[in-house]
Every structure is written in structure tokens, then in C-alpha cells.
């Protein structure tokens, strides 16, 4: 199939195998018709992409290597590196501006100083809102957990419940996801593991009705903490967002001040869409904290920097595995170190 391997593809191969030479000179041959060369193209791209899972710091190192002075071009490239770490366009532009100012003040003389300054700035943005959850301010303390489909809401709730019961709290879980097949069963299993009661209805029931029962039960059983699981919903589905607002209204009516905490769960592998998710969920449900899940893979969760920064939201917990104990409190310093590894 692939006979033509010159021109663009050869250049591509060279570039991917290390030598970064972004000039197009000497490649005046017309690009071969795409149909004929696709396998070759992919072969090379694949090799290039999988060979080096380039890290953020690796790329920054390459960028500043041997540079005695940091100039505007370097910052422009840094901008691209940050965007591609899923840090988001707005936050990246903001970071670059700050770095530019520091550059003007002659604070950034060399590559190391640039790296240090970048870390510092990201850390500052993450620590600005760092705050652990204080569940002693109300009883029952109501936590509502929301997010798009498949980010790990139910798993996070299971782990949260276990955290709280271990700390001696009485926890009640509400299976507010009445849509997805077997979602309530999933929560029940987690409830058993965490030694927490679960209130559930039949599949297809009105989530608000389940939540109503849950509130009544929590008050009657004198639970310390009430955690509401909700169905995954894409933030663009207006009717589902309305349904969520209704759940909130029911909560507020049954238990004064509830929900005391609304946690938005984000998947670490998510890209720029997390920003749109957070914006719309925040508009609809007054999100008060974030949980970043699935950090046990290779995803670094750079998007959380953007989300936390742009929406002034604290990151409460991070999920690092499927076990009951794999939910940790968020530590900005550790997170930034990991991001830069």
C-alpha cells in the first residue's frame, strides 16, 4: 500500500524521531495523495507518539535547554506546551502574561528560573482555594454529587462514605440515579462495603421522590452525613439539568441549608470540555467543590488547574484507584509536583 514515503512523511518521521526542525524548507515535493500513504503516515506517527510519552517538564526542559535568555518566542512555545497539558486556554494565557511581567522585571534569567516561576504560579492558583470539607457545620450534612456520565460519581460516593464511617460518622446514601441500569445496585454494594445505609427506589422513579425519602430517613435516623448520588448527565441537556435543580429544591425544602456541599466530579482524562462542564453545572447547581478522579492512570489532570482557577472552586478530593481507600484529600504541592514529573 505505502510506496510513497518521501516529502511530508519523511519530514514527519524525522521530526517525530527526535530532531525538532519545524521549518518546511527542503520539502517542496507535493504531498502524496492521502489514500495511498495512510498506513505509512500512521505507522510513523504511532511510533513517534508512543515512543516518548512526553512529560510537561520534559518538553519545557527541551524548550529552555541552553537558552541563556528567555525571550518572547520561548514564552509562545511554552504557551502551546501548557495548553497541551490540558491546562486550558484562558489559564494558560493568564500564566504566560504573569511570566511576561516577571520577565520584564528581570526575574527570569534562565530556564531554571522560568520553570520554578511556572510551578510557583500554578501552585499559587491551586492553593488559593484549597480547603478541606468541614462536615461538622450541619447535621445532617448534605452532600450532593454531580457530573457527566462515567466520571466516577458512584465510586467516589462509596469511597467518601467509607471515609466518613471510618471517622465514626453515621452516613446515609441516596440512590438518586434512577435512570442508568443497575446504578442503585452499584451504590448498594458500596453502601455495604462502607457500612452505610442506602435509600433507593425502583429504576425509572422520580429522583426527587427518592431524595425526599432520603431526607426524611436521614432526619429520622439521625444520620450525620447524607450523600446524594445523581444520574450522570451531559451539561448540555437542558431537561436533565432542570431535573437536577428540582432535586436541589427538594433538598433545600426538607433540610434547611441543604445541600451544604455540591461536589462536581471530573475525570482526569478530560480535556477542554471540563471547562464547559464546570460552567454549566455551576450555573445550574452552585457547585462548591471539585473531585478529580482516575488519577491512577497516565492522565495528569492538568485541566483541574484551569477549572479551579477560572471558577474559583476548591479541589476537595482526588481519586487514585478503585479501592475503598483510594480517595485522598487534595494537596496542591503534591499535585503540582506530579503534574511536572
Amino acid at each position, binding site marked *: 500500500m505505502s510506496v510513497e514515503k518521501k*516529502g*511530508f512523511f519523511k*519530514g*514527519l518521521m524525522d521530526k*517525530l524521531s527526535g530532531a525538532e526542525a519545524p521549518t*518546511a524548507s527542503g520539502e517542496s515535493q*507535493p*504531498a502524496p495523495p*492521502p489514500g495511498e500513504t*495512510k*498506513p505509512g503516515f*500512521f*505507522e510513523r*506517527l*504511532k511510533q*513517534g*507518539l*508512543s515512543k516518548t*510519552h512526553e512529560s510537561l517538564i520534559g518538553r519545557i526542559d527541551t524548550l529552555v535547554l541552553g537558552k541563556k535568555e528567555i525571550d518572547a518566542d520561548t514564552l509562545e512555545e511554552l504557551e*502551546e*506546551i501548557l*495548553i497541551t*497539558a*490540558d491546562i486550558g*486556554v484562558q489559564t494558560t494565557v493568564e500564566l504566560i502574561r504573569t511570566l511576561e511581567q516577571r520577565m520584564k522585571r528581570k526575574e527570569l534569567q534562565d530556564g531554571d528560573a522560568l520553570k520554578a516561576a511556572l510551578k510557583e504560579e500554578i501552585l499559587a492558583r491551586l492553593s488559593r482555594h484549597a480547603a478541606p470539607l468541614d462536615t461538622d457545620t450541619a447535621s445532617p450534612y448534605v452532600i450532593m454529587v454531580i457530573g*457527566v*456520565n*462515567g*466520571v*466516577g460519581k458512584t465510586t467516589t460516593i462509596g469511597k467518601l462514605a467509607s471515609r466518613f464511617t471510618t471517622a465514626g460518622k453515621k452516613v446515609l446514601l441516596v440512590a438518586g440515579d434512577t435512570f442508568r*441500569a*443497575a*446504578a442503585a*445496585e*452499584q451504590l*448498594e*454494594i*458500596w453502601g455495604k462495603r462502607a457500612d452505610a445505609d442506602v435509600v433507593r427506589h425502583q429504576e425509572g422513579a422520580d429522583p426527587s421522590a427518592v431524595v425526599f425519602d432520603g431526607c426524611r430517613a436521614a432526619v429520622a435516623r439521625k444520620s450525620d452525613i447524607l450523600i446524594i448520588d445523581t444520574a450522570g448527565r*451531559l*451539561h*448540555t*441537556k*437542558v431537561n436533565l439539568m432542570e431535573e437536577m435543580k428540582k432535586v436541589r429544591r427538594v433538598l433545600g425544602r426538607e433540610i434547611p441549608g441543604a445541600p451544604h456541599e455540591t461536589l462536581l466530579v471530573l*475525570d482526569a*482524562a*478530560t*480535556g*477542554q*470540555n*471540563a471547562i*464547559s462542564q464546570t460552567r454549566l453545572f455551576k450555573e445550574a447547581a452552585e457547585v462548591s467543590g471539585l473531585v478529580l478522579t*482516575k488519577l*491512577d*492512570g*497516565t*492522565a*495528569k489532570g*492538568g*485541566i483541574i488547574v484551569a477549572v479551579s482557577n477560572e471558577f474559583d472552586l476548591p479541589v476537595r478530593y482526588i481519586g487514585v484507584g*478503585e479501592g475503598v481507600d483510594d480517595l485522598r484529600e487534595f494537596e496542591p504541592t503534591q499535585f503540582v509536583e506530579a503534574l511536572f514529573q
Partner: protein
Amino acid sequence: MFDSLSDKLDLLFKKLRGQGVMTEDNIKDALREVRMVLLEADVNFKVVKDFVERVRERAIGSQVLQSLSPGQQVIKIVHEELVALMGGGEDNSLDLAAKPPVAIMMVGLQGAGKTTTCGKLAKFLKGQRRRPLLVPADVYRPAAIEQLKTLGRQLSLEVFDARADQDPVDICREALRYAGLSGFDTVIFDTAGRHQIDDFLMNELARIKEVVEPREILFVADAMTGQEAVNVAAGFNERLDITGVVLTKLDGDAKGGAALSIRAVTGRPVKFVGLGEKLDALEVFYADRLVSRILGMGDVLTLVEKAQSVFDEKEAVRLQQKLKKSQFDLEDFRSQLQQIKKMGSLESLMGMIPGMGKAMKQLQGAQPSEKELKRIEAIIDSMTRDERADHSIINGSRRLRIAKGSGTTVQEVNQLLKRFSEAQRVMKQLQKLGPKGLMKGMGRKMLPF
């Protein structure tokens, strides 16, 4: 969000008007915009870099066509190249040409939507008169087996009876044997979600693959995935040699640039896209539509299809008859509103129309919002049947009653009636102009493409 790429490029090229040839110099900024749009759409940076290089080579020295602005021309090149990269035009149908029972394996990260996609795929195959067996091989996530069984019940399809304390490889082996004995022609294996670096679980997948010898291994990927898509796809492909990709959750507002990354790193075609939580929300993938989405060029085809799928054929014919006789009343108006609502949020619909992204910003507040539609519906709901059939009988006291009944004000009722009369008049005029193409096309087949 950003304006569409074409708007940006047109702006950039304004200053270049009159130049006949694109040069390295005058397309530099344009290429930067292209790069940013792709990065913002979550396409992997390396893929973007190489891609932009390729566009540069094609663009430099090319004559600016008479009919296109330079901006449009760059867009055209970008569009063509992206479609080519996504394998536009090549065969991406499911390959089930093997001795039955044919095995299909679904693999991917946690939460990508494997189990739901299994259900959708089973329904799709059932529609093609195949007899699929669903096999739950996820013994790790609580209630995953129960989830597939529930889906099976909804679809009236058999789900292989497995328990969470069994070994997944054993489940798959037994299921395949069972399928052979019981006359199933297709077997869909729902595997547990896992990270590509989890050696133990990846080994398990490799063993399942050995045992069931699948004709298709579909990698299920979340359309919202960021730069990470490359690592994940590469990881799965290296271990399993996947045969295709299913892109899920495309019904949101994610651009789906991850698909480009996955395609680039695996070379495998995207075969299906998931467009909702319902079991019929699975569609065959079209490269050009995704590309238009990434470039913010609107997605007219999907819009038209969506409209066709929800608009009731009989209802459309009935409406058309009424229009012809100029009998379009409030009752019809309401049923139209309801059909529009079925297609999804107005905002997302607007986003599919080329150029509307920008127009929407300007119109913010001017166009009827979701809420307003609801009020309109409430007002019409509060009318009696007679009033809906002939709105001229609605006098002052009726207006007051309607306003009260719908929780709105008399002004709002007045406004609606006024707008409706205007709409009615416009329709009458259209009828006079010649109803041939216009309404017929709209009613029965929407648009002629």
C-alpha cells in the same frame, strides 16, 4: 467559547485582499489560528503540529481561487486534510464476515461507556437481523453484570449468566461455547474498564482475546478525552491490536478532537458514535461531520437527520394539508413546538447551523430561549380547544383567564397572539407565492439534501 475558525481566518485575510498567491509569510497567522482551534478541540499536540505542517505545504504557492476568499481556501484545505486523516470515504462498517458465532470485544477506560455501548450495539445488530448474545465480563465494578442484564431485559435479548466471583476469561470461554450451541450468530463481550498501564488487567484482555478470537475489538473512547487520548489508545492498541473505535458522549458540546488523536495513533477507523443515553442513540460515523464540528462549521447533516428522526411523518403531512388550506391554528403551533423540543436544546440546535455560533452571541436574549418556549406552551395549554382552533374569539376576559391559568401575564398572552397572527399571515403569503418546493420540502423531507 471561540468563534468559528472560518470567521477568524476571514478576519486575518482581510488585510491580504488582492494578493493572488498564498505565501509562507501571509499564511503564518492563519496557521497559528488553525493550530489553536485544533488544540482547543483536544487534538493531540503532535498530531496538530504535523497536520499544520501538511496544510502549510499544500497552501503555500497555491493560487487563491476566484470564488473563494483566502480564508475559505485555507479552511477548504484544512477540511479536506482532516477528512482524509479521519479516513473519510473508507469503509468503516462492522466486519462480521466469519463463521458464527462471531465475537466482538469492547474495551476501554473506566466510564467510557462500554456497557451502554454494548446494549446499543446489540440493538443495532438485532435491527440487522442478527441474533446477538451479550456477555458480561466485568466482574470488578459493583453491579456491572446487573447493568448489562438490565439492558438485555430492556432489549429482550439474552445475557449470558455470569457471576462476579468467576474468572472473566472463564466466563468468556463458556459464553462462546454456549453461543455456538444455542444458535447465536454474534457475541458481544463487555469487558471491565481499565487503565492501559494496568498490566494485570491488560493481560486479562489479551487472554480473553486469545480465547474468543474476536473479529472486532472495539475501543470505546469518551469524546471529552483530552491530550491523554493518545497514550490510552496507543496502550490498548499495542496490547490488543484493536479493529475500530466507538466515540461516545458526542451528544454533549465536546469537539471530539480526541478522535483525531486516536485515529492518528492507531490508524483504526471510528466505526460508531454514541449520541445519547437511550439504546437507539448509536450512529455510524461520518468523518466529514466530525471535522465540521471540530472546525465549528456547523453540522447541518446531523441537524437534518435529527429533525427527520423526531418529526412524525404523518404529523408532517397533516400539517402540510392544514397549511395549504390556511388552517394552521394554535394547536398545530404547539405540536410543532413539541417536536422542536424533542430534538434537544435550542442552543445545541443553533450550534449546528453554520455561522449561527457567532450570530447566537449577538442575538443573546433576542432569540426565544428554552424558558420562553415553555411559557408559550403553557399559554397554549391554558386555552380551550375552541380558542386554539380560532384565536380570534379570545377576548379580554379569556385573555385574563389564560394568563392566570398559565402563570403568565396578559401582556405575554397578547404578545403570543400577535406573533401568531403574524406567522399565520406570513404563511398565507408563502402559500400564494407557490407552495411547491418550500413547504413540501420542509414538511416531508426537511431539506433536499
